[in-house]
Structure formats: structure tokens, C-alpha cells
């Protein structure tokens, strides 16, 4: 039973436009959410996170939105750049519990010049 789902395996956008990556979760006990970016042959690198007490967190070109009632979060990248092309993983956690991460399947983002 997959608790974190990224239903779009891939996304292609034009450089300079907005990229929106979506993620749904089923476990209402999750209280911390993260996005990781992964390039080929590298490990995932932390991008941005959000606590369940917030509905938005912004860091430069990256913004994460959390809709707890819908159990949905999204990552917005504005403006998108070719260097953003990577696999993006959504992850959920209960830091107060163990800190382990539950990942989605990943979405491959391609930003075209």
C-alpha cells in the first residue's frame, strides 16, 4: 500500500515557464513533507520542506504548497531552468516518530531550452 503517490511519471516544460509537480498522500499522521531532487548516478538531494502547520514555504524559485484537507502537496518552480531537469521525489515523514522518509515514485522533469 503506497502512502505517498506521484501520479505523473514525467513532465516537460519550456525554459522560463512554471513547473508544477504534484504529490498525494494517504496517511494523515504525516506531519513533515519534503522534496528531493535526483540527477542520474547521484543520490537524492534535499530541495525544500514544509511542516504540516504551514500551507506554504518558499525558497527562491521553489515553493511548496500543502493542502492538508486534500492530503495534497505541490512543488512550483518559477522560472524553470534547464538545470532543473531531474527526477523529483516527494517524501513524507513523522519526525516526532522515527524520522524515516516515505517516498513517492518520482516525477522526471525535463526543462527544454
Amino acid at each position: 500500500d503506497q502512502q505517498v503517490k506521484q501520479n505523473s511519471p514525467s513532465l516537460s516544460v519550456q525554459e522560463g515557464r512554471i513547473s508544477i509537480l504534484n504529490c498525494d498522500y494517504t496517511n494523515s499522521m504525516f506531519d513533515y513533507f519534503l522534496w528531493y531532487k535526483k540527477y542520474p548516478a547521484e543520490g537524492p538531494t534535499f530541495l525544500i520542506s514544509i511542516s504540516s502547520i504551514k500551507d506554504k514555504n518558499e525558497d527562491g524559485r521553489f515553493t511548496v504548497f500543502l493542502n492538508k484537507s486534500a492530503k495534497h502537496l505541490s512543488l512550483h518552480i518559477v522560472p524553470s531552468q534547464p538545470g532543473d531537469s531531474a527526477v523529483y521525489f516527494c517524501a513524507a515523514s513523522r519526525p516526532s516518530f522515527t524520522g524515516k522518509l516515505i517516498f513517492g515514485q518520482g516525477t522526471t522533469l525535463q526543462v527544454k531550452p
Partner: protein
Amino acid sequence: EAGVTQFPSHSVIEKGQTVTLRCDPISGHDNLYWYRRVMGKEIKFLLHFVKESKQDESGMPNNRFLAERTGGTYSTLKVQPAELEDSGVYFCASSRWGQLDTEAFFGQGTRLTVV
């Protein structure tokens, strides 16, 4: 500061053989996690060490997998005997203890292929 390092980066072994993966976490990080990604699917949790103690090993697939972290520093993950379905990329991650906003740092992974 050195990041999380994993050895080897690639391993190809035959079914039935034994393989040992190693992870060196960031110095001072008490938390150490093992994850696995199979066939481009989600990254799945395997187990979690706090220093040398196993905090959570609920994700370990079966008793062919053995993880150790002697002395609370580096960790090893042994697969014995390896099966075809064990193929995948094994990631190690580490983080500091006690900070709720801490994010885990991942190694580059070990790609294991069982033939």
C-alpha cells in the same frame, strides 16, 4: 566536510553469491538510514540506526539482509544469498539527531545487479 559516501558504486554478482555494501555517514550524524530503489519505482525505507542501535528495521525484506553499524560510525548491508529481485540501487542517508527540521543527506548509491 565530506558527504555520505557509499562503496562500491556498482556491483554485479551472480544469484546465490554474497555482497556487502558499505556506507560512511557524515561525521557526527547519529542517524543512519538505508533505502532501496527497485526498477525506477519509489525509494523504499529499509532500516534506521541511531548510533549503533537499530531503531527501526521494519523495511528489511527478509532475513537474507543483515545490516550492522559497529561503533556507531560506518554501516554495512550484507545480502546473503543474493536473489534476482534484490537488484536495485541502495542508498544510505544520514542526519543529526534531535532536530525536527533536519534533512537527511544521501549518498550516491550502490547499484546492485544480480544475474
